[in-house]
């Protein structure tokens, strides 16, 4: 019970960091997953799910009004699903839980932005009159809506994690295959994201040099 409450609290912080405050990147899956791992007493699972979802998150460029999955909350839910599972068996299922939560998170961000727009329209007359109080109320109400979004999404993620731990329809061989598949897709997503990031002049050259160093490191 305490663990669930702590995960819910951590998920709320992670969710609001992504959008409202303070955007210090505790919402990055690597960070969110590691802390969730500490909460559930399985730092190894936290690191594994954190790395996998961080690879997915490398594909996100949040320019302008771009829509993107909430991978930080996905990591919290994923770690809750993976905690205590032996070796690679829980990783695949937990990554799916994380991706599903992140995908619902993308929709929740879209709805939040529309809700904020509706509220701004509703207060348009007071805002155009130049009421400092009305601006503060409208802005802080947006923050509260984001907190609510983060709480609800964390709860959904934790419910998905509990359901997956109890009823995951996967055999042992299926669990390993799922882990392999999620690893392949995560690495491909990061690689595709990296190629988009490195489209600036000479970016490819630096990326190729880095790949050479990385491959040499692994080979040695």
């Amino acid at each position, binding site marked *: 019970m305490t663990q669930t409450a702590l995960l819910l609290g951590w998920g709320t912080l992670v969710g609001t960091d992504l959008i409202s405050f303070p955007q210090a990147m505790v919402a990055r899956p690597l960070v969110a997953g590691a802390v969730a791992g500490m909460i559930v007493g399985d730092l190894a699972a936290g690191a594994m799910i954190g*790395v996998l979802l961080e690879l997915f998150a490398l594909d996100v460029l949040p320019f302008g009004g771009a829509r993107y999955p909430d991978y930080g909350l996905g990591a919290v839910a994923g770690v809750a699903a993976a905690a205590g599972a032996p070796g690679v068996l829980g990783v695949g299922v937990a990554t799916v839980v994380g991706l599903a939560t992140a995908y619902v998170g993308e929709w929740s961000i879209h709805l939040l932005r529309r809700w904020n727009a509706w*509220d701004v329209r509703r207060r348009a007359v007071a805002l155009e009159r130049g009421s400092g109080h009305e601006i503060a109320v409208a802005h802080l109400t947006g923050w509260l809506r984001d907190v609510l979004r983060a709480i609800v999404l964390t709860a959904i993620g934790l419910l998905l994690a509990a359901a997956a731990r109890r009823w995951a329809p996967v055999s042992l061989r299926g669990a390993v295959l799922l882990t392999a*598949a999620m690893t392949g897709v995560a690495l491909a997503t990061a690689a*595709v994201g990296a190629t988009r990031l490195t489209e600036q002049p000479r970016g490819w050259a630096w990326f190729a040099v880095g790949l050479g160093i990385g491959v040499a490191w692994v080979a040695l």
Partner: protein
Amino acid sequence: MINATWRLFCIQASWNYESMLGLGVGYASEPLLRSLPGGVDGERYRAAVARSASYFNAHPYFAGLAVGAICRAEHDGEPGDKIARLRTALAGPLGSVGDRLIWAGTLPTASAAGLLLTAVGPRAAGPIALLVIHNAAHLVVRLWGLPAGWRLGTRLARALAVPPLVVALRLAGPVAALLLGVALPIAAAWLVRDLDLAGRVAAGAMFVVAAVIGRWLTPQLRGARLGLLAAAAVLIGVSL
């Protein structure tokens, strides 16, 4: 100034598809506008506050420059239409610089360093490195932006030409690319270390299929969507 700086950290809380960052800019600007002649009941305050909360969009970390410059222009008594033009003129450059420096520079750099250290160092080192590297840049930009904008006012373009920022913009992309290149193979080796040969072959095959789909076939179908689709395919495949 302290109140406005604090408010900059939550500038995106009311982000929406219509006024975008506008309301947040208004919220951060309001403390700096209270000292306009006439005070909070004065006409200049009300007109300035109304202008400050209108449509605006830029990178959230760099919005402090705009807040400082716009508030300074209000205090200097610039005409309303000139301030509106200043807002419009600032949005593009501050968005572009922030996107290049932060979203395509320090963030992927911090992420790559985090992945690398998680794979080769103590597990907690990766997340700590990510937070330290990213927030070093984040805090410098946030804390520098508002005073710089306030000091320069309508001459804000000079702030974007300061040598440290120019150098950072030049280095951000290559450093991110280099570190991502180093991190990806090492993270890959770390992730597959517990998989048997069949598992590694499956991961490799999935990598190729997902990369081809995500890069060339249907770029919209990548990331979480592609991952969920792949999981559905595996679950259906193993149940048959």
